[in-house]
Each structure stands twice: as C-alpha cells, then as structure tokens.
C-alpha cells in the first residue's frame, strides 16, 4: 500500500525547495488567491502555465503531482458537461432539445483551468518541503493553534492508522474474507471501519495521557530555526508581483 507521503520528494534540491518555508507559504497562498479570482480564460491559462513552470523548476516528478491532480479533476471535469447545459446564453448546439451554451462552456473552462493552476501550485508548495517544516512554518506564522495541532496529529497518526487498517485487513484475508459488495461484505467492512474508529479513539486517549505526562498545557510549543536570506526576499517580491500583475492585466484588457 502506498503511504500518502506528500513530502516524499522534499529532500530534492531546487530554488523552490530552498525557498524559506514561511515566505513560500505566504507567497504561494497569495498566488493561489490571485489565480482563483482571474476572470479571463487567456489570463487563467497563463496562470496555469506559471504554475507548471514552478512545478518544473521544483524538479518534483510530474507523475507524482499529476496523480494527485487527477483526484481534483474527478470533481471538476463534470462541470464541463453540466455547465454548458445549465448556464443560459447563446446556443452552441442542441441535442434532443437540450441546448449547450457558449457561456456555459466558457465558465466551465475557466473554472477547470483556474482550479488546475491552483492545485498544481499548492501541491508544488507542499511537495517541496517536509511536512513537519510546513507545520512549523504555519506555527511561526501564528496560524490558529487548533489547526496547527490538527495538522500535526493527522500527519503523525495517518501512518499508524493505515498500518492498523492493513493489519486488520490481513487478519481478515487470512481468515478467508473476500471483499464483495453484498450485504455480508458491506457489514464486515462496516465493522472494520467501526473498529478503526474505536481504536483511534482509545489511542487518542493514550496519546493525550502521554502528552499530559510531559507537561502539555494546551499550547503547542516548538522550536524553529528559519532565516530569510536575500534570495528569499527576491523570490517573494517576484511572486507577489506576479500575483498582482495578473489582476492589473485583467483590469486593463
């Protein structure tokens, strides 16, 4: 089974990898916000190209990123069919009396391109640093404590829970269970998920006790050693510039 290790390639070396994590999070999120508000397909397309460029510069394996983009595509692509049929406007063609509109297609394309740009951007950001670094950067950026801790525990325990699931799965296969979509199969799977929830709940309690044992008071504290260098400032300035430029362009044209 594949572990969902988003930071598998965090040890590569590229300008994106070397970029200060805090500056990276701020500028990439800024770019993201800027890209999703783009109103023109041509500009959205440029944004997508820029995201792809960053991905290339980061040297992250394209397949690694695309595999994750796929998941988002499953949700976004149906829009290309639904929106032309539902948005009112000039008719493109009609099938069985249902007409597809130019405007619908245009909106749908805009949404698909923008979301691709955004997803590639964020995956490049997450993939180019270790996840614990991401968490620490969020912590130093004063992100809400609860959020930081939730991310931290998710990252720490997702692997443990996967292992627990796998060992349960193996135990069931060893006793001859074949997953089928009949009532019996589904009820067994339901039991398994229930078991996993109970196990997680109990583990949560034990982890909390371990935390109390080591002086946890509700405030996560950690030690970080980030330092901005000149290249970080330059890169930040460029990214912020592009985030703004995209919109000046839109307004002027």
């Amino acid at each position, binding site marked *: 089974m594949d572990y969902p290790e988003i930071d598998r390639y965090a040890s590569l070396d590229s300008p994106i990898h070397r970029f200060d994590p805090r500056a990276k999070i701020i500028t990439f999120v800024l770019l993201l916000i800027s890209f999703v508000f783009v109103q023109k397909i041509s500009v959205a397309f440029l944004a997508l190209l820029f995201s792809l460029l960053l991905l290339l510069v980061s040297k992250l394996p394209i397949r690694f990123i695309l595999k994750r983009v796929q998941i988002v595509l499953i949700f976004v692509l149906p829009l290309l069919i639904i929106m032309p049929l539902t948005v009112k406007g000039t008719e493109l063609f009609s099938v069985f009396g249902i007409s597809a509109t130019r405007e619908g297609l245009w909106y749908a394309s805009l949404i698909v391109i923008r979301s691709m740009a955004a997803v590639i951007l964020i995956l490049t950001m997450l993939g180019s640093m270790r*996840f*614990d670094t991401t968490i620490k950067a969020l912590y130093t950026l004063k992100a809400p404590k609860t959020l930081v801790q939730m991310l*931290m525990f998710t990252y720490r325990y997702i692997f*443990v829970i996967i292992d627990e699931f796998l060992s349960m799965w193996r135990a069931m296969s060893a006793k001859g269970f074949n997953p089928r979509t009949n009532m019996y199969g589904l009820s067994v799977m339901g039991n398994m998920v229930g078991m996993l929830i109970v196990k997680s709940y109990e*583990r949560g309690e034990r982890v909390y*006790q*371990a*935390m109390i*044992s080591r*002086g946890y008071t509700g405030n996560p504290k950690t030690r970080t050693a980030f330092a901005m260098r000149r290249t970080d400032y330059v890169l930040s300035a460029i990214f912020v510039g592009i985030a703004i430029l995209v919109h000046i362009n839109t307004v002027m044209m």
Partner: protein
Amino acid sequence: MTKEAVSIRDLNYSYPDGTVALEDINITIEEGERIAIIGQNGAGKTTLFLHLNGTIKSCDNNVVIFGKDIGQMKSKERIEKVGVVFQDPDDQLFMPTIFDDVAFGPINMGLDEDEVERRVRSALATVGLTGFEDRVPHHLSYGQKKRAALAAVLSMEPRILVLDEPTANLDPMNRASLIELINDLNRDKGITTIVAMHDVNAVSQLADRIYVLNKRMVAEGPPTEIFMDFDLLRENNLDAPDVFKLFSVLSCFGFNCESLPLSINEAVEVLTKTIEGDEKHVHLHIHEHTHEDLEVLMHRYDHHHG
C-alpha cells in the same frame, strides 16, 4: 541517608463506568531503588503509573513524591520528578520529528533554547540514537521507536523513571540493551526505576524488590521471596523464572544452595560457588522423597490444574 521517593497511602481508583481499578494501594519506595510491579493483564499497572506522575489526579491527595503531594505540584515540577514511558511508543511519540518529540518535555518545562538542545542531544546519545534528530517516527523500527520514547522522557531528567512493559515485543538484542540502559541510569545517576513487566525471566535483572498488583497490592518483597510463594503466583496468574524453576527441581535431587538463582547469571554464580566450595562438585542423587517432592513441585507450577 535515603529519602522516600514515592509514598502512596490508601489509593483507590475506579473507572468512569464504576469498574474498580485500584483498591487500597499502599506503596513506599526509597530513592535509588529498583522496583518491579508485576501482575496479570488488567491488574491496574498502567492506571497506577498514571497516578505516579499526576496524569490522573487522586482526589484524596495520597500520592506523595519526595515528600510533596503530586496534586499540588505545578506541571513543570511534576514532570521533573517523575517520567513515565508508556508501553506503545506510537502513543508516546506524537510530534512530527524525533527532535521535536524529545524536546517536547524540556520546552514545556520552560528551559531556554541552549538547554533544550543540550538535553535533546544528551538524551538521544544515552539511548544510542544520535543523528536521528530529523527523522520522522513512522520511519523508525519498533526498537528504535521504543528507545526514542525513552529519550523523550529522559530529556526531562526525571528523578524517578517509570516504564510500562519496557521489554515487551523487543528482540533479544534490543531487550538486553534496554535492560542495561535502565540499570545504568539507576547506578550512574541514582534514578529510582519502577518497571511493570510480564516477563518474569527479566524481572530479577531490573528489580531488587517486587510488588504484586492485582487491583490491590497482594504482595511485596525481594524476587526470591515472591517466586517461592507458589500459591501467590498461581492466584495471580503469574509464573516463576525458568532458571528458578530448574533449580527448584535440582533441589529435589539434593542440590543445596542458600538462595535459588533467578537468572542465568545468578545460576552461574551459584554453581561456581558450590563447585569451588567444600564439595568440589555438584552432587545430585535420588533419595526416598525425590519423586514425591518433584510431583508436588511440578503440581505447584501447573497453572491448568490449580
């Protein structure tokens, strides 16, 4: 002069659903002692340990550590005094990297950065994990996780070290090195160690005194005394060390020694002493009571037909 490290008086605890977990527990442990708490599954060992460092607070203020009620202590003082290493290292290692995890306690104690750094390095060096600072817990082996969990407690430099099943699920090499490590900490730094174990063969290597827990404290004493008490062992679903049993058998054949050995090392000592002594050899023979004695002995160790 030794000080009282732990003193528990009439401690009672029930789970929220009303099940009694601990009943009238009385313990006194001197500083620098090596203690084992043995008992069958569900005997309340873990619950007792959670009381020792104030994770579960007793309402009656009857857990006293170095003369001070643990319920009255600030969290910093509490974790400086007693460190608990839990059984499952995945419960204990909750931070993203090993460094963060080992630094968790010291940072919560409010130490400055240099001191935190120093303690993390020294704790990792003690358990033999130098260079693992940036590793993530899910990339470590079970033995490494177990040692990292110990380091995470050692970094708080506690005066009392409590370990829940330290040797469970470890391979022989990791087990031996962990036992040695715990004993080194006791000998060199004077840390009071309290372990919960199932593994009776290793108990004598880690403890000079044993408490037998079964919701109540059913017995207390040096290992030899505890393991001689067959009824006690059987009633509490416990076993005696294999070496101890073998020498009990040998004594039925006329082998004479002052105290029965509990581990292979002690066995070597006993045999050497006997052979070097007046007799010059080990003399075994069958006398009139041998068969009878053996039968009684084997029956005593038999858990199935109690």
